[in-house]
């Protein structure tokens, strides 16, 4: 059985963090100039009492409403987050109940970041191909804002909170092609929240400089941006080439490349390196920032909204980051 993307919706929390606000918080820092380089004007930030599961539920409800989807038809929930409500139970179980999805549905969480959406499509396709499920609700939701130290201007500038909901089914608007996946755990420490889980349960109060003027504690989000950039410029052009090869297509066959919206500077570097024309390389992050696992579905949604997609058009989706973990696929519009 073939797998298709049937519907996509997303949710942004109401609270915003603008460049002007960041500039007021860090007056000595050229926020405007840096934000301009990374292509971000505003990020949405979850409220204090709003959690990733709440946003995932809001995104799912938006999907039900916008695309006339009946929750009773869903027979599997895949929930991608690194901000679970509890160590246990699996947040997807709580989501099943709150959304009124049948008790006969399967549900599980998987912990991935920027590669998570494409991995989710791979898992959903596998469930369909194996005849295990027919209507899969793939949710991605992240609240990195809750991990970031209040004085960590770098990460505050980049990340925004968001959730997205995608229905993967036996029919839909785009067929899901073949996948190229990758993992390199040697990079684990370069994007990490070290404390607060089982290995290091106590969160220390002392802050350390990250070497670039950002303050963090080991219980906060740590990202070695330059190291991640170096990893990306090495692995992602190969990921794109291999994804094309696996789908039997060439660069010229791809109408839109939709990569994880890490930051515009990095994306532009990759685009030029891979010699892709700007009109074939979609960027959508000015109003949302880097939304981790929701960046690809948000960009996909916005790109489709921008202009009608021709039947048979092929778009390449790719995610990469924390892990390190990366994934690519090609979707073909019906």
């Amino acid at each position, binding site marked *: 059985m073939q797998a298709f993307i049937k519907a996509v919706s997303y949710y942004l929390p109401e609270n915003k963090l603008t460049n002007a606000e960041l500039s007021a918080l860090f007056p*000595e*820092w*050229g926020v405007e*100039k*840096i934000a301009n*380089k*990374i292509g971000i004007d505003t990020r949405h930030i979850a409220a204090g009492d709003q959690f990733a599961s709440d946003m995932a539920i809001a995104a799912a409800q938006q999907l039900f409403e916008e695309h006339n989807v009946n929750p009773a038809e869903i027979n599997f929930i895949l929930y991608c987050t690194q901000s679970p409500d509890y160590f246990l139970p699996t947040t997807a179980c709580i989501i099943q109940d709150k959304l009124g999805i049948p008790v006969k549905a399967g549900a599980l969480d998987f912990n991935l970041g920027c590669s998570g959406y494409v991995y989710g499509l791979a898992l959903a396709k596998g469930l369909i191909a194996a005849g295990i499920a027919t209507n899969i609700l793939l949710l991605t939701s992240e609240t990195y804002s809750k991990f970031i130290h209040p004085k960590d201007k*770098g990460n505050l500038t980049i990340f925004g909170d968001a959730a997205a909901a995608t229905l993967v089914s036996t029919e839909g608007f785009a067929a899901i092609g073949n996948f190229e996946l990758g993992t390199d755990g040697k990079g684990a420490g*370069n994007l990490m929240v070290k404390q607060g889980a089982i290995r290091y349960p106590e969160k220390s109060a002392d802050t350390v400089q*990250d*070497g*670039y*003027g*950002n303050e963090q504690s080991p219980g906060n989000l740590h990202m*070695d*941006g*330059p*190291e*991640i*950039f*170096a990893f990306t*410029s*090495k692995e992602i052009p190969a990921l794109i080439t291999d994804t094309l090869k696996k789908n039997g297509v060439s660069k010229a066959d791809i109408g839109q490349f939709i990569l994880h919206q890490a930051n515009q*500077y*990095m994306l532009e*570097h990759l685009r*030029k*390196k891979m010699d892709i024309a700007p009109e074939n390389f979609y960027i959508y992050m000015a109003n949302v920032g880097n939304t981790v696992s929701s960046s690809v579905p948000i960009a996909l949604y916005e790109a489709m909204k921008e202009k009608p997609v021709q039947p048979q058009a092929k778009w390449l989706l790719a995610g990469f980051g924390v892990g390190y973990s990366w994934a690519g696929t090609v979707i073909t519009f019906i």
Partner: protein
Amino acid sequence: MNIEKFVSEFADQFDDLDTSAFTPETLFKENDEWSSMTALSVIAMVDDSYAVRLTGDDIRNSKTIQQIYDIVLAKSN
């Protein structure tokens, strides 16, 4: 490659700082503009101009532009 050209390309990654006095011995982190974004720009510049992959550690372990230049030189051979 030569060091004068490299110093000038390195200096181009700064927007606000007066880099006219940059020399191979300049301690490039000892200024207000140095940030992870500048580090990232240096990695991008070296990738574009010299097809060499600098790592975050290469930057972290260096103090002077000369030290970065030496790493690029070593990696390009």
